[in-house]
């Protein structure tokens, strides 16, 4: 284990620091003694934490440090690829959080934590002092796992589009402009990664668009796994709608055991190389890279040398410092999967714990549910209901259920309607 001791941390930052005078701008007249809660990251986890904290406590100062002016929701973003929704439908800004919940928004990048001085270092605004820090940075991508792939290529002609935004639009454009009969290759990553059914949902929506506009084109899923979430549902849908398993199949799925694991990208020749050495050329290449916790958590020692940030599941407190919490996809939360739904629920536990700690009370016993949806088409939805409890400092999966019915078209259609309702309600629960 690679734990950063407090002494080491002290050494890294030293005792001296900039004084901070950032909050002259705040309109709210917080008392001088009001505790300051700083949140790194303005995604689902970070904004949920801010909102639910404010609901619990009107008298604390809350600041979100987030480099982007807008946030684009990932849930629903696969539907941008076939124009079922527009990216604008999924885009929000921070005005509402700022005005309605009196949260300071600092548009900046957090780069380090001075644990001893209880300050976050930012790229442009110097240090920001906190009483409690919530880190909600999401995942980063291990581009190096696929030789020849890089962040630069992802931002160029090989978008992973695994964080909704410009890359989603780029991928959409590539698919829409693909030559007749072309191939879209999707490389699906090993677990754990954000939103397990999403690569297959993506393949489904891409195929839906192609079936209308480029019916001889194909979607090839090259998988680093041997199975996937909702596999029965997706295979059922693809078999009924996309000729899956036949010569005319519009979607093909290659599991790792059949040579599906991609190890290399030959960008110049638009070719993927698999673990078996097979070379597969495609017109559109969408590599979803393996994940790791955000760089910020590695740089600050929060991950303690692990792939994911260890936390105390009682209240998502970090193992490094009692005043620092980490939520969402960046955390080691197995057997939970990485979803926005869970990230928002981590944040509710954190908000409650912080308010309790100000009152000198211990954290409350938590509950974490993951009641999520996925789609195969506008007429086919799926649902998952997971419940997690905490016993003896461990996360226990009390129940996990995935919808199983295959031969009930009406039910699939209801679930699709529910899924879309869920997406909307979920977005509103975080940002409205």
């Amino acid at each position, binding site marked *: *284990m690679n734990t950063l001791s407090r002494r080491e941390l002290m050494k890294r930052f030293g005792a001296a620091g900039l004084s901070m005078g950032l909050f002259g701008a705040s309109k*709210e007249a917080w*008392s001088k003694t009001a505790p300051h809660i700083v949140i790194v990251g303005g995604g689902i986890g970070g904004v949920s934490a801010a*909102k639910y904290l*404010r*609901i619990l406590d*009107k*008298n604390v100062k809350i600041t979100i440090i987030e480099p982007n002016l807008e946030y684009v929701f990932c849930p629903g973003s696969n539907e941008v690829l076939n124009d079922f929704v527009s990216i604008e439908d999924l885009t929000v800004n921070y005005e509402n959080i700022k005005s309605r*919940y*009196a949260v300071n928004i600092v548009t900046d990048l957090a780069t380090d934590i001075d644990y001893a001085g209880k300050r976050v270092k930012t790229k442009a605004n110097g240090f920001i002092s906190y009483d409690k820090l919530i880190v909600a940075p999401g995942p980063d991508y291990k581009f190096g796992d696929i030789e020849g792939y890089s962040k630069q290529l992802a931002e160029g002609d090989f978008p992973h589009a695994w964080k909704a935004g410009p890359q989603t639009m780029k991928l959409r454009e590539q698919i829409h402009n693909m030559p007749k009969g072309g191939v879209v290759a999707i490389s699906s990553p090993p*677990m*754990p990664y954000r939103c*397990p059914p999403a690569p297959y949902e993506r393949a489904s929506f891409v195929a839906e668009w192609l079936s209308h506009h480029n019916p001889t084109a194909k979607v090839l899923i090259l998988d680093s796994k041997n*199975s996937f979430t909702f596999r029965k549902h997706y295979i059922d849908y693809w078999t009924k709608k996309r000729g899956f398993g036949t010569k005319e199949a519009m979607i093909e799925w290659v599991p790792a055991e059949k040579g599906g694991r991609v190890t290399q990208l030959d960008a110049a020749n638009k070719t993927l190389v698999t673990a078996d050495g097979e070379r597969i050329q495609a017109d559109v290449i969408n590599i979803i890279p393996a994940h790791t916790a955000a760089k910020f958590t590695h740089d600050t020692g929060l991950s*303690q040398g692990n792939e*994911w940030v*260890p936390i*105390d*599941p009682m209240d998502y407190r970090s*193992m490094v410092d009692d005043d620092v919490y980490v939520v969402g996809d960046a955390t*080691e939360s*197995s*057997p939970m999967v990485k979803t926005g*739904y869970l990230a*928002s629920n981590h944040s*509710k*536990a954190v908000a*409650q714990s912080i308010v309790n700690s100000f009152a000198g009370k211990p954290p*409350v*016993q*938590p*509950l*974490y*549910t993951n*009641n999520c949806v996925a789609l195969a088409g506008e007429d086919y939805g799926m649902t998952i*209901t997971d*419940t997690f409890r905490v*016993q003896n*400092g*461990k*996360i226990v*999966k*009390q*129940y*996990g*259920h995935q919808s*199983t019915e295959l031969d009930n078209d009406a*039910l699939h259609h*209801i*679930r699709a*309607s*529910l899924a879309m*309702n*869920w997406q*909307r*309600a*979920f977005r*509103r*629960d975080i940002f*409205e």
Partner: protein
Amino acid sequence: MKKTLLVSLISVSALFGMNSANASGALIPADKFAQDPQIPGKMLGDNCSACHGTLGRFYDESMPPLAGIPRDVFIKLMQDFKNEVRPSIVMNHVAKVFTDKEIERMADYFAAQADRPWKEENVLEGAQ
């Protein structure tokens, strides 16, 4: 020391977690958790917000608002879901994890929420 132990425990559970992503697991009956410290109604109820709205207060979606539901009505609904009296699409699987006491605490929580849309709420009312 305590924390080191926790980390090693978590690492073990991580190994199991890798394999569980694709499985529907068996239900551990709620009563097995009856001796655990109580989960407050708010903690239980706030898990519902993604579908039913913040504090159960979305009134313009298909999933019904929960704020202001009379205690006994909520309990009856949840018990019916839990015991599969009404076939349902999602809620059976949501409800069956809770103890009777937890359902009662959730009922108290939602009965105490203001019965009006969240979007009308002045969140900062009372801010200093």
